[in-house]
């Protein structure tokens, strides 16, 4: 019996020892892994915490819903505007056909204003929240922690991209499409090497939100003014250039400007000779 107990306790000790060695090895491997990972990665700049990513996603969805609402009305406005111009109604507003088109146009215009008035506050809040959270991160991570030379060092970590135009130009496209692409870009797991490009993406989104906020504020002012005019019955049934400007402004916010060059030409192929490395290089 004693022998059995001894054998059992010996086995237990052996198991404990094996378990201990196993545990030690696991901890050792994990620690080593972390040390190597820390050695291989340079300090990461955290510009996109989960809240920012969620804000971007929400803005994209809000923009998409607004676009869907407005698309039909804007299409109708475009058709009526074309009909008005094709019928040579400018200067002949008193003609019965023309006054009818003008009245329809004004109705549709009013419909658009109502829709926008209902949708804009939500959209504005969403854009503002995205802008504010990004502003905080950019100020902290790039403004306070980085020097101007550091900004270039950050960019140098990213793989080489094709050259752009002499001065940067932010492309104009559908607002929802923009934010959908932004979301796809930042929602992917960031690596140390991509922090440079993520910084550029953050800068682009942030500047976009600033621009969109300004445009939304302008549009809301315009809506109030236009509705006041309609209330006063001064402009209802009369086509004013402001109406067309307003529609153009709405299109700029939601659908981006058209006619801009989309693609960026790739640079001519560089020399294939081995790169000379000067000791003076920084």
């Amino acid at each position, binding site marked *: 019996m004693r022998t059995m107990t001894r054998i059992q306790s010996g086995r237990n000790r052996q198991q404990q020892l094996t378990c201990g060695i196993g545990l030690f090895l696991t901890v050792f491997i994990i620690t080593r892994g972390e040390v190597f990972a820390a050695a291989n990665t340079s300090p990461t700049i955290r510009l996109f915490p989960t809240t920012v990513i969620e804000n971007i996603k929400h803005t994209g969805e809000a923009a998409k819903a607004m676009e869907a609402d407005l698309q039909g009305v804007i299409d109708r406005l475009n058709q009526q505007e074309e009909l008005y111009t094709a019928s040579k109604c400018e200067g002949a507003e008193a003609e019965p056909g023309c006054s009818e088109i003008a009245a329809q146009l004004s109705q549709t215009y009013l419909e658009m204003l109502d829709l926008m008035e209902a949708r804009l506050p939500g959209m504005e809040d969403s854009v503002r929240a995205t802008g504010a959270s*990004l*502003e*905080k991160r*950019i*100020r902290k991570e*790039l*403004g*306070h*922690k*980085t*020097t*101007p*030379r*550091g*900004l*270039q060092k*950050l*960019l*140098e970590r990213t793989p*080489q*991209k*094709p*050259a*752009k*135009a*002499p*001065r*940067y130009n932010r492309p104009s496209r559908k607002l929802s499409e923009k934010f959908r692409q932004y979301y796809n870009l930042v929602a992917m797991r960031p690596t140390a090497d991509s922090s*440079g490009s993520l*910084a*550029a993406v*953050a*800068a*682009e989104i*942030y*500047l976009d939100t*600033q621009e969109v906020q300004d445009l939304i504020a302008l549009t809301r002012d315009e809506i109030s003014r236009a509705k006041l005019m309609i209330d006063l019955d001064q402009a209802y049934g009369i086509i004013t250039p402001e109406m067309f400007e307003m529609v153009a402004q709405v299109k700029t916010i939601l659908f981006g400007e058209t006619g801009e060059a989309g693609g960026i030409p790739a*640079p*001519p*192929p*560089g*020399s294939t*000779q081995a*790169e*000379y490395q*000067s*000791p*003076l*290089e*920084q």
Partner: protein
Amino acid sequence: MTRFEKKIYFGKNLLFIMAILSLLLLSCENRKYLKPACTLPSGVNLEEALDHSEKDLGHLECEPMFDDYFVRLIDVAKRDPDMENKRRFSEFLEWAHDRGIIDKIQARSYYNRYFNTTFMSLPDDYNVCSSCTAETKQTIENQMENELRQKEEGLLKACRDKSAYYQASDQYNSILLLLDATCTSCRN
């Protein structure tokens, strides 16, 4: 020694001293003609232009003209473009530093402004928010624009290193974007 002999001996010594003095004076006069002309290099051969510049800059009188020599050498290199020109300029700048004509910081600045993608106009002392006053930001942007032109001269025209130049140009655009966004966030 008789008195007459003494006079002759004294006369000889006097003549000898006068000869030496006149020789010294003449040699001083000749220095005018030996003074280096400090002529800026020209032609289409960079190696020759570099040799010429090193010879001239070896004289104290030409040292203050180092910047003129460098700019002229870039002009020559543009007519003799080669990837090897990076090495040639680097060696020339190291030589100038070794001779005490320029300091290490100047040597680095000359090289990187013309032959590397790093923008030396970007300050590295304080954080970005400190460089966000309208005046400072404008100065940085202007200096970067000038530097991009220098990189165009050095990388693209003197070395035909198109990929490096386009990389610098791409980074220039991205830096302006980052500066704009960061400074906007710092101001708010």
